[in-house]
């Protein structure tokens, strides 16, 4: 189990203003989980500014992104539940 400070849950496309707000506050010990429209970031060349990137499998598959997950770790809902508990804090953007 990796420990990290803040888990950022990001459900917006990279075009949404809150997407860059979120990336701007990522700390070095933070993790990012992309959900809903957020998974579309993996199709772009945007620098996600952390190496701890998770992506929610049901949302990845729904958006036809199964082959485009870059360096993210795919997780299902039970694993997402775990992640929210491992973090010291969670922020939903």
């Amino acid at each position, binding site marked *: *189990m990796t*420990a990290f400070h803040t888990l950022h*849950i990001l*459900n*917006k*496309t990279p075009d*949404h203003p809150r997407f860059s707000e979120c990336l701007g506050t990522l700390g070095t010990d933070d993790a990012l989980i992309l*959900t*809903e*429209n*957020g998974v579309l970031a993996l199709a772009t060349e945007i620098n996600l500014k952390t190496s701890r990137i998770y992506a929610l499998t*049901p*949302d990845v598959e729904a958006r036809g992104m199964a082959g485009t997950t870059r360096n993210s770790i795919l997780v*299902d*809902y*039970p694993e*997402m*539940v*775990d992640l*929210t*508990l*491992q973090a010291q804090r*969670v922020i*939903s*953007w």
Partner: protein
Amino acid sequence: MTNPATPKTFTLVITGAPYSSQAPQSALHFARAALEQGHSIDRVFLYGDGVHLASSLATPPSDETNWSQVWAEFLEHHGIPGVACIASALRRGLVDEKEQARYELASENLRSPFTIAGLGEWVEGQTRSFRTLYFHAGD
């Protein structure tokens, strides 16, 4: 460090409306997974446009999921309180019998077991829960 195996309590806040955002669906998937892992959900609080999830009148086409109904059944089955913020609800035309009488409205449209109450319910949920998670609209 938190041991994820220890049962924890969540409060879930939904601010996105069904048939407009994916928020109620994502929240339900999360809630089911949390319970399956032995965690508990203190309450579900509907805020802003999220209050529309508590509508008793939502009637999607028969080949689409009725998220209000599915959520209501989930809450009922697990005995989890579902609370819509009263200020958000009244502005958006979501009322229970009590508000119907108080404002002399022609009908009410709150789906059981959802109830209507103030933001204090959210504050209490946050203070009593190990995690309070938000499900916002994604656009």
